């Protein structure tokens, strides 16, 4: 109960801060695409055209912000009539494979805005946190899952294009590097995202 009170007070304080510090908050919604690299590319080489990201930042001053980011990246690839060998069992399987990866990054972020009063606002940043990774290998309808929680991080660069209206255009790129978990592979992919952002 005491913990709940703490949380409620914390939320109330945060809400009060948001209300009183107008224009000190930044929100962005992005459509995310991704190019796989490394071991992830070995599993799925097809470019990912989904899905999305949500970002909130607290502006500490004109240049620097800290915040949180949650996102969802879907990758899939169908490989027809491929063969896999399982040497320990002297077994070979052939069939159509459908491979899936779903990433749910939940990261804390830090951003430095270059020339915040300019016509375009470039920024660089980084994020780190937990990644939920859902991996599925399906051969001819027989599916094998490996779902893990991983730690990962990314450097980020992007540009905000102020429009003069309430919402600005926003593009960014992130290189996600996700450390192995449960003897699984290292995951990595390059995000290229477009969306809208606004200060409030």
């Amino acid at each position: 109960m005491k913990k709940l009170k703490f949380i409620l007070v914390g939320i109330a304080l945060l809400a009060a801060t948001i209300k009183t510090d107008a224009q000190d908050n930044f929100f962005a919604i992005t459509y995310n695409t991704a190019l796989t690299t490394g071991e992830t590319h070995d599993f799925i080489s097809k470019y990912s055209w989904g899905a999305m990201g949500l970002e909130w930042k607290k502006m500490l001053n004109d240049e620097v912000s800290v915040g949180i980011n949650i996102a969802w990246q879907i990758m899939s690839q169908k490989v027809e009539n491929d063969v896999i060998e399982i040497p320990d069992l002297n077994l070979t399987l052939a069939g159509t494979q459908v491979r899936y990866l779903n990433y749910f990054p939940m990261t804390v972020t830090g951003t430095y805005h270059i020339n915040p009063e300019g016509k375009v606002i470039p920024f660089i940043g980084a994020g780190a946190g937990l990644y939920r990774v859902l991996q599925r290998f399906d051969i001819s309808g027989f599916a094998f899952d490996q779902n893990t929680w991983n730690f990962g991080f990314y450097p980020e660069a992007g540009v905000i294009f102020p429009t003069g209206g309430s919402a600005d255009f926003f593009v960014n790129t992130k290189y996600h590097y996700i450390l192995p978990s449960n003897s699984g592979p290292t995951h990595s992919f390059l995000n290229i995202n477009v969306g809208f952002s606004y200060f409030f």
Partner: protein
Amino acid sequence: MKLLKWISFSMVLGLVVSCYPEKDRTINDYDIIGTRYADDVVFKDNYQTFYLYDSVIIVYDSSKTKPDYPLNEANAILSTMRTNLLNYGWTELTRNQILAGDTPDVYIESSTWNSTVSGAIYYPGYGYPGYGYPGYGYGYPWYGGGVSYYSYTTGTIVMTMQDIKNHDFNDDPAKVIWNGALNGILNSSSNTISRIEYSINQAFNQSQYLNLTK
């Protein structure tokens, strides 16, 4: 702000659509071919002749009527197996040669059975992306969840190769030294023969250790 809402809505809609990027699969995509050989078996230089049992064994529930098996499919199974073995340099012994006293190095038979799978899948709202099961139905689990009912029949063909050359002819069965198993969803299309031929050819293609000419 209104524009932003519309764009956000479009992006979310795009997201939902892209949750199922590989949902379309053909019946052939559910065909699977598995092959396995026994430990410590070297085929080349140890085996040369085979006897292919001249019928396809139908496995069925003996409490029910024996199902009919199309003769053209049985012939396709046997002829494709024979062709592959001959192409791999094996020598076939006929039934008359066996009766005359010749003993093949290996005995090969094929068997087949069908299985019907049916059930229901409950899915929550905004279903998990990318999960496609055979016979999932023609509705995708968008918005709100529900239950999908499915039923499909799979056909299985198993090819079994047993070692006669090293068998001591006691009561124990001869050692199985190679298996090829083919499984797929049955349908009423006319391409069953070509699927059988493709799958058996693939089983031998991925079992290059059976090739005595290399």
